[in-house]
């Protein structure tokens, strides 16, 4: 049926004679497979905290380091997907689970990841004594925590907003829960999920770099990777090595984007729910290559058939419609709520007990004071970044030519781990004897300001052209044009970008407010520096206090500022 046209045009010749496309595609596939194999092998090598392999500063060692860093990203992404599919599905399907899981998720995404790295490292190292798996898992877990929450949220939202007619169609075809998951739920959630995976990925590079080399008290760990390479370079004051690391990271991110995310976005385009044809189609040379290569198609076909068969299998844990009801709903709810409340009270009591024995009110006051300083910094930095990037973003976004050139760069900059650039900045501060209290601050927003830029560009380029033309034909004055047309138009996008930027700045404060160059230590004060110093000293109760204060500040800021702003933006932009 579908093949008829191909037979006529002779397209099936390609299936017999491998062409250049086959060669390139095969090389790509084999290359990736071999690299993954090598990376995995290295991960399970024996490991002892006392004698770790020395990190070499030779540029020739960098490709292998970069590979291992990329492997960690990949492993974390797989873990995040698994987490997303289970956690979010559970939350969407069970009302009682939802009551607990969603608030937990909401809090988890506000907790600064770098803050609790010290706990997880100690935990995982103890879990796998004498094996590299321990610290590897700790690093992967850190990246996982930077990626999983928003993916799970996106998937949960999608599951909750499946259109009624598709849901009814699926039910009227009597699909099993398994069939429904792969036929309806995952495809429907796909565009949002892929977008969030990209966002997660670009945030993840920062944390992979930060989590490879870590020292908590006496425990010193340096996993072979770009992050450790940079850490070693800092310790030895080797600016050239930092330059090499920046280059290696750039190459790794570009490859990752081209070979993995571009193809995925282009492929996921078919899951778009809008029934209208789109004007712009996401393109990917790698995907085109794979699609056109006859060899890949032939090799891939059994795999595709197996996957399709798997999705069609009528697996179901419970026969559908046969939900047993042992207790009346209200009694069940009351029991469940009682259980949750009991658990919460116990945990609260345990925390108060423990904290009371090791912390004093003076400690809390100190942490809160530092928190206020960091809060002021974050607020000022986000405001400054907005003042700079909003006009530039609008300027770029309104010019399609410019957008197509600037947007990839801004997305790359957002993904690039800014902590690789810190040594350069610190070198300059030391060299020119600048005040660290002021000049360390910009580092906090160095990596995340780009989120504001590329969201504003996206907003401005999505701004309906008839609105702009109307404004132009009425000759609206510039000031009014900004205030009443452009700013409201990009506002929802700006808020999205600003939320990400401010969340990132909080996280970055832990590595930016206290930095080293060789044996020189620069400190700007603030909560980030507080957590960093306590981590270096291995002082767990005070680390926990710092993390808790920061979480509370982030959650408060989200609740009182960002969420109302976001709701306001959504309400105002609706036409119906």
């Amino acid at each position, binding site marked *: 049926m579908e093949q008829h046209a191909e037979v006529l045009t002779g397209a099936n010749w390609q299936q017999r004679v491998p062409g250049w496309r086959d060669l390139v595609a095969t090389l790509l596939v084999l290359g990736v497979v071999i690299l993954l194999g090598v990376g995995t092998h290295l991960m399970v090598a024996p490991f002892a905290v006392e004698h770790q392999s020395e990190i070499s500063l030779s540029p020739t060692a960098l490709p292998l380091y970069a590979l291992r860093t990329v492997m960690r990203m990949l492993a974390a992404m797989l873990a995040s997907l698994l987490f997303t599919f289970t956690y979010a599905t559970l939350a969407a399907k069970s009302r009682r689970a939802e009551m607990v899981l969603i608030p937990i998720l909401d809090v988890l995404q506000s907790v600064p990841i770098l803050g609790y790295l010290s706990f997880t490292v100690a935990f995982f190292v103890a879990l796998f004594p004498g094996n590299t798996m321990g610290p590897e898992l700790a690093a992967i877990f850190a990246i996982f925590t930077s990626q999983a929450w928003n993916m799970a949220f996106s998937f949960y939202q999608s599951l909750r907003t499946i259109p009624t007619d598709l849901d009814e169609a699926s039910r*009227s075809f*009597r699909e099993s829960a398994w069939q429904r998951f792969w036929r309806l739920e995952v495809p429907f959630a796909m565009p949002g999920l892929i977008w969030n995976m990209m966002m997660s990925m670009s945030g993840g590079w920062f944390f992979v770099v930060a989590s490879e080399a870590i020292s908590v008290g006496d425990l010193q760990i340096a996993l072979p990777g770009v992050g450790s390479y940079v850490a070693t370079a800092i310790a030895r004051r080797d600016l050239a090595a930092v330059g090499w690391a920046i280059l290696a990271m750039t190459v790794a991110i570009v490859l990752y984007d081209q070979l993995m995310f571009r193809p995925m976005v282009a492929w996921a385009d078919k899951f778009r729910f809008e029934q209208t044809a789109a004007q712009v189609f996401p393109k990917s040379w790698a995907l085109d290559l794979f699609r056109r290569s006859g060899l890949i198609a032939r090799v891939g076909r059994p795999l595709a058939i197996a996957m399709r068969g798997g999705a069609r299998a009528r697996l179901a844990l419970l026969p559908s419609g046969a939900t047993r009801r042992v207790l009346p709903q209200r009694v069940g709810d009351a029991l469940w709520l009682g259980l949750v409340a009991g658990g919460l009270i116990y945990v609260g009591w345990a925390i108060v007990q423990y904290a009371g024995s090791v912390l004093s009110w003076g400690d809390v006051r100190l942490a809160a004071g530092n928190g206020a300083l960091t809060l002021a910094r974050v607020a000022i930095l986000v405001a400054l970044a907005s003042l700079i990037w909003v006009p530039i973003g609008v300027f770029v976004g309104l010019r399609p030519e410019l957008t197509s050139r600037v947007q990839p760069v801004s997305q790359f900059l957002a993904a690039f781990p800014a902590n690789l650039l810190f040594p350069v900045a610190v070198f300059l501060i030391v060299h020119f004897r600048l005040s660290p209290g002021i000049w360390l601050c910009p580092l906090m927003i160095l990596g995340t300001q780009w989120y504001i830029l590329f969201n504003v560009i996206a907003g401005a380029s999505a701004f309906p052209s008839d609105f702009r033309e109307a404004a132009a034909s009425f000759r609206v004055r510039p000031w009014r044009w900004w205030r009443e047309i452009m700013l409201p138009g990009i506002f929802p996008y700006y808020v999205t970008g600003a939320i990400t930027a401010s969340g990132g700045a909080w996280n970055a404060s832990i590595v930016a407010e206290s930095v080293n160059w060789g044996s020189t230590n620069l400190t700007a004060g603030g909560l980030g520096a507080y957590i960093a110093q306590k981590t270096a000293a291995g002082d767990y109760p005070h680390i926990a206090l710092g993390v808790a204060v920061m979480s509370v500040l982030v959650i408060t800021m989200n609740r009182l500022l960002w969420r109302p702003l976001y709701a306001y933006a959504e309400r105002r932009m609706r036409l119906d």
Partner: protein
Amino acid sequence: MFDATAEPIIALSHIDMNFTKPSGGTLPVLSGIDVTVHNGEILGLLGRSGSGKSTLLRIAGGLIKPSAGNVVYRNAPLAGPAEGIAVVFQTFALYPWLTVLENVELGLDAAKLRADEARRRAMSAIDLIGLDGFQSAYPRELSGGMRQRVGFARALVSDPILLLMDEPFSALDVLTAETLRTDFLDLWVGHQLPTKAVLMVTHNIEEAVLMCDRIVVLGANPGHVAAEIRVPLAQPRNRLDAAFHAIVDEIYAILTSRMTEAMGSQSQIHGGLVRQLPEVAATRLGGFVEALAAPPFGGRAELAKIARTLALSSKRLFPIAAALHLLEFAELEGGTIKLTAAGRVLAQSDIDGRKRLFRQHLIRFVPLAAHIRQVLDERETHAAPRGRFEYELEDHLPRREADRTMRTAIDWARYAELFTYNDRTRSFSLDRAAA
């Protein structure tokens, strides 16, 4: 053709359906419904919006469980979606990420067929419904008519005994709907379908008379069987036939009398405060009154006729007629609409005069609007939150209807400059001029 001795395919008896009110009580949407679909017939469910006809269809499909009553499908109680029942949706409900072929194969997922057998059956369904050549297209590449053909193929591929259709043609333009309707009837009349019976929801009176062997008219608030009409005409039917017209007129008469009755009974509760308002913009009423006053109608018309002349679907026409009746600009009786004296004045007034007259009638005949205005007058701030009035409405009407009624009241009051409404603060207030 309807045959009362034919074997029943699905029988719904004593069906009640209640939804939960925000205040915790229950709100009935269907009450005591008995409907049986027999072998060999197309049964139509006709009714205004809010009469619960789509809910009833979903109950028959096992997609919704009724609050009370039982559903017997081929001599066994129905528990959830069953083999042999297929649904065609108003919105097509196609999976946008699957091709036409894959969408049709979806209808066979539950059947555990071998892959090649499923492919063969899907292809023959695609052939049957006139989609050949489009197998590899994605839904977004198709026009509305072709999309609904996929919807039909997907429903028919499983060889259903009972076909449920939820306003299958209402999302299509007139011409496309007509073609698809005719194609479907050809297959049905020519016995090319394995399907034994069809239950179809529609709001289009002519469509019901064109396709159905029997029509069940549902009344609203709560939904109940108001009348049952047989259509003893042979297929293919002719719209210009006198017998055809007679049945259409009869249904118009039934629906209008149900409507005026319902409005009368609602005005008894709470002094008419919770009376449901038809969803129609005030400016639209003016346009209709002008057309009705002008020749050839001269102030009086049969609904079926004016619907054809003005190319208004009955879904559009009924709210207008109901609103004019409610505001006493016109009178509805037995399928005809007649302008009152006030209605004639309205037709001839300029825009300011029209607004003045509309305002007088709004205060007199729509207690909700009058009540809101009174509250605003009494308050020193001349403002009041919407929630205050809405809550009361929601106690007596389903939430969607309450919202619709509120929106209509706001539109009418804005037109009449009786009061204004601020959606951002969700509150009513008086214009400075009006205060």
